């Protein structure tokens, strides 16, 4: 190969590629152009229906394909000729560049034979030189000129022209040509469809609807004949033919048969129904048909049997008859009720034409569905109503579920009635055991939370001598958890209170525990927060650390006590649940025995089946109950559930075995044997029940001791209350004496009340003037003074001289402090420069003067009122005074006893959280009133002394009632003597108890029995301060006066 031939070879390669490209493009474009023209011609023919559509389509498609293949063949042949070899390519290039042709072709040929040239006598150097020259010339060749693209361009133009022609034809030929193309492409019918022309005029239609629709006949004129009616409607039609006819029909086609047919009339298909029409005057046509299914009909004219014309199909549509609908609007989808309840069910039903029958369907827990007719309707489309679902009829047991729904039929007597059904509803039989179980689970979860908290607290590292920051942070987090626990316990108690089955003792216990934890947590959190704030500066010996340590210990004690008590209480409740479950089981056995007895008396296959079904149901129930009993027993510590009872639990499995035996005997037809087995089962169950009851009722030593102490405590409270009652009664006699002597003075004072009011008002006005010059330190005294003077005014308005005297006595010391304080501040302000914004000495002194001046009218009021209430010593006889002295001493003794009771209460509280923290306050309140009563009596004041005594009695009475409630709860359970928790009334309220009617005797207090409590009196005075609209003022005044009397 000559060395320069490479360049020639490269140029030839490029030339060959270009040649191929041009040829292929030219052939494709040309072939496509011709094919388009052929397709256009074919589509036109198909659109116009020229020739046989199939043949036209075949020919067209074949021609188009031939054109494409022809073009491809041409391209292939040309390529073979022009570029199949280097020589052919060289010649092709030479045709475009004749000056090179000879050199190029010869260079290629010489290079091809290069190996043999020497043998043939050629000079290879000359050959090389020739090739090199040819290569040099070829390298400068412009292939664009040598191999022009003209054929491709021309073919492209031809393709464009053909495409343009097609577009123009489509624009002109419109949808028709488009359909032609579609048919050519195999879409749509192979031939153009010619809709037959109508052969009748307007059609008059009369619809005679089926009776169940309740619709009157209807006639419509001037229609195209389209029919839309319910199934079963009779359609009468009349029209006029467009030509004289001999005979005419209407041909009805169902929807399954093509509604559009070629115009050529043909014989009726198998799905067609033909109705003859009556022909009058050769052109007037009338007839009728029944609407049965959707489809179409067309008119057909006949001469004899020969069809002479057939009109286009006219649509028949069947108006759908909707399914009836029924809904249960009440109660909710799932309700929980008692087994004997009657559930009111509201329903509403509707249908487009009419309702017929309404039924209730119930699917009981065992056995097949039961259907009960509820209503039959007469031509009504919409109806609603209600019925009572009497659950007693199904004898469902606690926790079982009944499914029910309502079904309705419509009145369609053409196609047959259609059925509609409501959604399935559920009635769950209320199960107290289930509710209790859930509540106990919740309480148990809280107990676990409490135990976790206690565990985490105990595992906190020792704090000595001073806790590090990490421990402080952990301790704070635990305080947060204690708060959270308190809230959870409180919320759980509140939620349980709304539950009917809620174990009262658990609720009260949770509340008490919640309060106890709160009481321990609050001071601890506060102290810890303070310590954390001062941590950097507090020495290790600081008392605050000791206090925190004490509070921590106190919190641990609280949690320990709570954990133990709650555990016992929950165990107790579970044990009682076991007893309940066992009783239920026993009752079921009795029911079964009674069924068996019935069967024995009147045996039948049906009764036997019922019996077997009942046994199977009872077995399922027993299994469930045994499972739950096992669950319950699992968590019971044997302080309440001893081994005897646990062994009993195991023996109960025999009960289930006994039932198997009953079933087996029954299946063998041995009724007597089955009854004996059932009796034996009953004995075993009774024995088991007795043992469980005994076990559940046995308190442990600790609780027995605690209960004993609590009983003694309750008796002591009752004794103190009784003594207090007696003492109050005796004081009351002296008080009556005193009041009798005061009556005249009170009357006289009422006349002077206006003047006192004025003085009080004057005093307050003067005090108000001091307001602008107050120093920050004086604000508190000012507030107190103003409040007391306001009380004074209101009390005087209400003619409550007693309260008025108290108010003014309270006002005067703070007024005096105010005056003196302001004077001091003024002097200080004179001597030392005041910071910006502080009052100056002049302002302060002025304010002080106003405060001093306000005292004078207030003092006058006090003096007047004191004169009104003379010292009882000056009014009462010597004997009465001596009595009061003695009463005072007795009262002191009672106060001391109340103190002892508080101490005892504290001791009991430390043993178990049966008392909420408020109980201490309650007893403290009683003790406080007793102390004050003793003081007042010592001062010979029977009025106030008696008031305090009544308040003490009130507090004691409330406390005693709580104790009685505890005792009642303890008796209420099957067990005796478990220390049930003390339920506090008061601020947390008993929101869930609205429905509970107390059957306790209610003491109706006498008119003079109570002195209005101080707090109440204050509230009323506060309310009076709020003011009232003018027209209501006199009424309001009267109301308040009555209240505070």
């Amino acid at each position, binding site marked *: 190969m000559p060395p320069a031939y490479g360049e020639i070879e490269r140029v030839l390669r490029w030339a060959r590629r270009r040649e191929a490209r041009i040829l292929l493009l030219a052939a494709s474009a040309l072939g496509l152009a011709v094919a388009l023209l052929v397709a256009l011609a074919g589509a036109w023919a198909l659109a116009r229906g020229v020739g046989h559509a199939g043949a036209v389509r075949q020919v067209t498609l074949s021609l188009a394909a031939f054109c494409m293949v022809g073009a491809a063949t041409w391209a292939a042949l040309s390529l073979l000729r022009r570029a199949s070899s280097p020589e052919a390519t060289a010649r092709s290039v030479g045709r475009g560049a004749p000056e090179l042709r000879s050199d190029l072709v010869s260079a290629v040929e010489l290079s091809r034979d290069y190996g043999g040239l020497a043998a043939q006598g050629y000079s290879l150097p000359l050959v090389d030189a020739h090739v090199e020259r040819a290569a040099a010339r070829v390298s400068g060749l412009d292939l664009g000129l040598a191999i022009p693209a003209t054929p491709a361009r021309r073919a492209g133009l031809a393709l464009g022209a053909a495409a343009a022609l097609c577009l123009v034809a489509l624009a002109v030929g419109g949808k028709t040509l488009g359909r032609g193309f579609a048919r050519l492409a195999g879409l749509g019918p192979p031939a153009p469809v010619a809709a037959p022309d109508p052969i009748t005029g307007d059609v008059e239609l009369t619809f005679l609807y089926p009776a169940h629709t309740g619709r009157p006949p209807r006639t419509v004129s001037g229609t195209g004949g389209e029919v839309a009616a319910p199934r079963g409607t009779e359609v009468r039609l009349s029209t006029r033919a467009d030509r004289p006819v001999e005979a005419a029909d209407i041909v009805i086609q169902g929807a399954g048969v093509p509604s559009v047919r070629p115009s050529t009339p043909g014989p009726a298909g198998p799905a067609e129904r033909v109705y003859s029409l009556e022909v009058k005057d050769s052109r007037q046509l009338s007839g009728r048909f029944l609407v049965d299914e959707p489809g179409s009909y067309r008119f057909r004219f006949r001469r004899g049997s020969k069809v002479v014309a057939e009109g286009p199909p006219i649509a028949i549509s069947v108006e759908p008859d909707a399914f009836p609908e029924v809904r249960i609007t009440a109660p909710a989808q799932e309700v929980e009720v008692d087994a004997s309840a009657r559930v009111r069910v509201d329903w509403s039903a509707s249908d487009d034409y009419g309702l017929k029958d309404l039924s209730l369907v119930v699917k009981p827990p065992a056995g097949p569905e039961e259907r009960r007719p509820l209503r039959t309707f007469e031509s009504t489309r919409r109806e609603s109503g209600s019925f009572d679902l009497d659950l007693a009829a199904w004898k469902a047991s606690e926790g079982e579920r009944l499914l029910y729904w309502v079904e309705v039929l419509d009145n369609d007597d053409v196609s047959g009635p259609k059925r509609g059904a409501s959604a399935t509803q559920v009635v769950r039989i209320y199960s107290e055991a289930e509710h209790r179980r859930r509540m106990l689970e919740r309480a148990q979860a809280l107990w676990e939370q409490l*135990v976790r908290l206690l*565990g985490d607290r105990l595992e906190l590292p020792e704090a000595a001598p001073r806790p590090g920051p990490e421990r402080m942070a952990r301790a704070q987090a635990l305080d947060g958890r204690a708060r959270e626990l308190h809230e959870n316990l409180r919320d759980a108690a509140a939620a349980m209170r709304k539950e009917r089955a809620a174990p009262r003792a658990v609720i009260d216990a949770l509340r008490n525990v919640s309060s106890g934890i709160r009481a321990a947590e609050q001071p601890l959190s506060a102290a810890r927060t303070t310590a954390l704030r001062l941590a950097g500066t507090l020495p290790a010996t600081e008392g605050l650390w000791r206090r925190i340590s004490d509070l921590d210990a106190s919190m641990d004690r609280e949690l320990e*006590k709570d*954990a*133990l008590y709650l555990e016992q209480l929950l165990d107790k409740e579970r044990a009682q649940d076991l007893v309940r479950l066992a009783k239920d089981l026993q009752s079921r056995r009795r029911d079964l025995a009674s069924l068996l007895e019935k069967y024995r008396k009147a045996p039948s296959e049906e009764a036997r089946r019922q019996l077997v079904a009942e046994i199977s149901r009872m077995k399922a129930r027993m299994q469930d109950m045994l499972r739950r009993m096992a669950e319950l027993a699992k968590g019971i510590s*044997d302080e309440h559930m*001893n*081994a005897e009872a646990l062994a009993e639990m195991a023996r109960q499995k025999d009960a289930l075995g006994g039932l198997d035996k009953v079933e087996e005997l029954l299946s063998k037809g041995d009724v007597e044997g089955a009854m004996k087995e059932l009796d034996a089962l009953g004995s075993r169950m009774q024995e088991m029940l007795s043992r469980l009851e005994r076990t559940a009722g046995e308190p442990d030593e*600790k609780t027995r001791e605690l209960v004993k102490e609590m009983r003694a405590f309750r008796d002591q409270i009752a004794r103190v209350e009784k003594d207090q009652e007696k003492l109050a009664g005796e004081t009351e006699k002296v008080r009556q004496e005193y009041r009798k002597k005061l009556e005249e003075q009170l009357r006289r004072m009422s006349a002077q009340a206006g003047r006192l009011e004025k003085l009080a008002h004057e005093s307050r006005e003067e005090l108000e003037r001091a307001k602008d010059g107050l120093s920050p330190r004086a604000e508190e005294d000012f507030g107190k003074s103003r409040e007391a003077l306001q009380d004074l005014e209101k009390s005087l308005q209400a003619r409550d001289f007693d309260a008025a005297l108290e108010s003014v006595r309270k006002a005067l010391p703070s007024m005096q402090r105010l005056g003196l304080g302001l004077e001091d501040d003024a002097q200080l302000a004179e001597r030392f420069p005041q910071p910006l914004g502080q009052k100056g000495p002049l302002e302060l002194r002025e304010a002080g003067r106003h405060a001093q001046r306000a005292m004078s009218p207030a003092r006058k009021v006090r003096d007047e009122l004191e004169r009104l209430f003379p010292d009882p010593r000056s009014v009462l006889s010597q004997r009465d005074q001596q009595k009061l002295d003695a009463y005072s001493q007795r009262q002191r003794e009672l106060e001391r006893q109340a103190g002892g009771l508080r101490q005892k209460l504290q001791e009991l509280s430390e043993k178990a959280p049966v008392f909420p923290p408020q109980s201490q306050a309650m007893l403290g309140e009683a003790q406080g009133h007793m102390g004050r009563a003793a003081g007042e009596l010592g001062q010979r004041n029977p009025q106030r002394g008696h008031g305090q005594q009544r308040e003490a009695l009130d507090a004691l009475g409330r406390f005693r009632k709580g104790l009685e409630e505890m005792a009642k709860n303890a008796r209420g359970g099957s067990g005796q003597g478990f220390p049930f928790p003390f339920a506090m009334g008061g601020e947390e309220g008993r929101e869930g108890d609205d429905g509970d009617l107390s059957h306790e005797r209610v003491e109706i207090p006498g008119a003079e029995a109570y002195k209005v409590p101080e707090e109440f009196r204050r509230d009323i005075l506060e309310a009076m301060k709020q003011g009232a609209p003018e027209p209501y003022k006199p009424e309001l005044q009267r109301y308040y006066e009555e209240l505070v009397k």
Partner: protein
Amino acid sequence: MRRLLALALALLPLARAGADEPEPTRRALEALADEDLATARAVIEPLLAEHPEDRGAEVLGGMLRFHEQRYAEAVELLEKAGAGRAGGIDYLALARAARDVTRDHQHAESEHFRVSYPPGKEEVLVPYLLDALEAQRQALQDDLGYAPEGKVTVEILRDVRELARLSTLTEDEIRTSGTIALCKFDKLMITSPKALVRGYDWLDTAAHEYTHFVVTQRTRNNTPIWLHEGIAKYSETRWRGAGGQSLSPWAAALLQDAVKKDKLVTFAQMHPSMAKLPSQEAASLAFAEVMVAVEYLQKKGGRALLSRILDHVAGGMPAERAVAQALGVSFDSFLADWKRYMAARPLPAGGDTELRRLRFQDDPRQGHGAHAEWAEIPDERARGFARLGEIMRERGRWAAARIEYGKAMRRVGPRYPVLTSKFALAAMNSGHDAEAEAALAEAARTHPHYAALHVNMGRLRLKRQDWKGARDAFLLANRVDPFDPEIHAGLALAAEGTGDAEAASRERRFAQILSGRPAGHEPAGRKE
């Protein structure tokens, strides 16, 4: 004696010789009643050979076979004779029961003992039992100057029901008195420790019963019950050391209280059997009384005095006279001295609080629950803390449990082994080994029969590779609760540690038998 006479009278009509030759029958019956098997055999075997069809000979033969523990033959003979009841004892029923109970028993023997035990877990008792009994035999030979020839049969019974079937005691009597083993019909019968919630001191008990066997033989069954039980009780610890170590602190306290209140169980009330006493407390008191009586005799005259008394008794002298004669004072004086001795005897540590009531696993009157044991703690607050500890322990909160148990311990001290054991476990699991060890050591001193204390101690010692100490602790536990696989796993580890491969292998196998699993190398984590 009266019983023996009744038995003879009952059998007389059955004897071939009848009134003509009553002597062999009488002698045979007397020998059987005295548990003198050799004499009985010498009389009955020829009778049986000469008159195999005689009903009387068959009855005597049946009784002999029963005493020889050849139960199937005994049943055959007694059934053939058509009667098995003699002297108030239904031998046929006893033989049948013994045959049935021991039908599948396995056997193991040592030089002087033959143990018959039910297949399965009881196998772990055998080597310890044989060793202890051989040691006891040697000790008694030293003390009483006598040891029976031949092999003594020891039957291990599964529970108290089997014990009742094989003895003349009812199940109620057994439960009431806390009887767990008997020496009767020329054999020892021992209830498996498996039958009791916490096991019992079964090796001491076996030694106790064997002492009865020896005393019976030594005195031809003439020893009254008080002396019999006194010697047995005193000597039951001889196999492992000195005698008189078995008086529990509680029993000692019970005794002292009874002396003060003059409410001792009289020797007469102890007759015919301690098992017939009305309660476990009465039985414990009676045992304490007689043990201290023998202790007193030992103190007065040592082994020689006791041997002299037994010689007199064997010679037919009433025990009261024998005691008086040996002491050289009147029996009343002896009684008065003995009472004074009891009153002055110092109480062992913890004697005022110990209360160990035996609990049978299948007794419905006994608590089974995990917390019934807390009821033994009288201090209410301590009980509460203990329960809190338990609550924490159940939740794996060992550190918190330790604190709560600790609070309970601070209130009641180490008096309640159950509490101490739990406290120690919690302390060990929360990394306070030293605290645990101190508490365990203190409690184990006063409650040597509380296995869990020793097990926990064993764990601690294993942990610090004190192999010998661990072995001692586990062996102490094994004396009470041999069915705890951890004890044997611990012993295996300890033996490995001391290089005793044979013992290690055996204990590993025992642990495997008991747990059904291969013995692990980590004994901790057992049930508590």
